[in-house]
């Protein structure tokens, strides 16, 4: 279960241009300070409740705040205002490469990534063979990742990321990877991942993907929820109105 109550997220803007001790000290002496805009409000008073077992799609234009709200739901961002309650272990799939190390072998990288995704050592040993096989890397699995082609790298990351069995899955644009041969396997694997008896929040620009897996869709715009309901209805509304809206 995930519950957001009146959550706002303000990104602090000053470090962007060098928060340095020098400028901090100089500001002490600068009496005539005209404060430039210090925060960017990425989420504005958002309230949302996702119950156990729900499969929710998250849609919106670029810059609407989707990645931000996913991070709030994953417990990565603390709200600047409001409160979040998360019950259950979250495995965020917000990128495919965190923890991947070029100097380690493919096999070691699988272990590392699973460790960061919260899998126990026992569970890692159980899954590693299957992941290695699925990635179709063959002997390369024992070589350092820096020897891999981009496709191999992505297949490895994909195979690893989709092997987890989280209580709550928060996924940002699940990456499909690989050539034509791999694509069909990948599709099946994603379907398995998204079909489990778990709470899922999936952000995507692919309405087909969302329609297939999510019964409920939340539409985010300028940091606010402007629609939350049955997926067919909200998606239809989005497809009609969104192309004309302002980012």
């Amino acid at each position, binding site marked *: 279960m995930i519950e957001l109550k009146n959550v706002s997220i303000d*990104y*602090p803007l000053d*470090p962007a241009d*060098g*928060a*340095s*001790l*020098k400028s*901090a000290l100089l500001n002490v002496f600068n009496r005539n300070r005209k404060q430039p805009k210090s925060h960017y409000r990425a989420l504005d008073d958002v309230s949302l409740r996702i119950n156990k077992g729900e499969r929710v799609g998250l849609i919106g234009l670029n810059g609407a705040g989707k990645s931000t709200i996913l*991070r709030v739901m*994953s*417990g*990565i*961002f*603390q709200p*600047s205002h409001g409160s979040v309650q998360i019950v259950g272990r*979250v495995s*965020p799939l*917000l*990128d495919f490469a*965190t*923890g991947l*190390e070029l*100097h380690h072998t493919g096999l070691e990288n699988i272990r*590392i990534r699973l*460790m*960061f995704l919260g899998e126990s*050592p026992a569970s890692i040993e159980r899954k590693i063979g299957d992941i290695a096989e699925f990635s179709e890397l063959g002997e390369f699995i024992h070589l350092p990742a820096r020897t891999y082609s981009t496709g191999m790298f992505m297949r490895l990351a994909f195979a690893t990321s989709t092997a987890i069995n989280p209580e709550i899955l928060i996924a940002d644009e699940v990456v499909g990877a690989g050539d034509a041969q791999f694509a069909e396997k990948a599709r099946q694997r994603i379907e398995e991942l998204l079909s489990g008896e778990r709470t899922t929040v999936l952000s995507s620009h692919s309405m087909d993907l969302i329609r297939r897996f999510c019964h409920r869709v939340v539409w985010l715009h300028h940091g606010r929820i402007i629609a939350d309901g049955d997926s067919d209805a909200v998606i239809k509304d989005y497809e009609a109105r969104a192309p004309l809206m302002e980012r």
Partner: protein
Amino acid sequence: MTPLLREFKLAINNFQIWTYLSGSDVKSRFRRSKLGIVWPVLHQLAFSLGAGFIWAAVFHLKPDDFIPFLTLGFAIWAFIAAAMTEGCSAFVIAHGYLKQLPLPQSIFIFRTVLTQLIFLAIGLATALGVLLYFGKLTLLGLVLGIPGILILIVYAYGAIGSLAYLGLRYRDLQHGLAGIFSLLFVVTPVIYPAEVLIKKGFAAAIYANPFASLIEVVRYPILNGELAEPLHYLASSVFALAFVALRFQLGFRWSRFVPFWS
């Protein structure tokens, strides 16, 4: 008390992750380098023996006493300075994790502390080897050095923990500290015995300098087989605990901003 207990719990629960990260740090430092771990050892020996013989002549000291003194001081000082300068980048280097995964921030503090402790162990081992060679190594000395080492560890946790937050927020801090430590290296009795300064009337550089105390509580017992002056234990402990308090204060106020600043 409770933040401290929570911290211990986090350390235990996430043991696998931060020990892996630390091991990875140490390995990558020595990767693709033919001599690997031998380099820092050679560097320390070269400095200690080279500078040792020459300065012994300059300060009118016996090399047999002075070179062990120098090697040990150098190893401890390198650790004290590295705790601060590397501490600044503890969160910076973890920015990927901080933005993508809901891992407790303390993990990256523990990782950096462990990595620096490993390098300290290498430095101390080298120094002890030198002591053995000059016949200055005693079991009593080693045992009496343990309280000092414990204080060093507390200092490292507090300094790295505090500077992790400060160094993330103020990215130029690391450079500033490197400069300050160059100055401190000269002022602190690392490469000359405290007596030399005291005789010239600069006792304040030893007694009002917490870094000097941090070194003394480890170096003096090991070399002399007796505990250092109580003042040094007091000063270094207070110094270390002040950093720990700062770490928790900064954690309390700035934890929420760390993913944004990463």
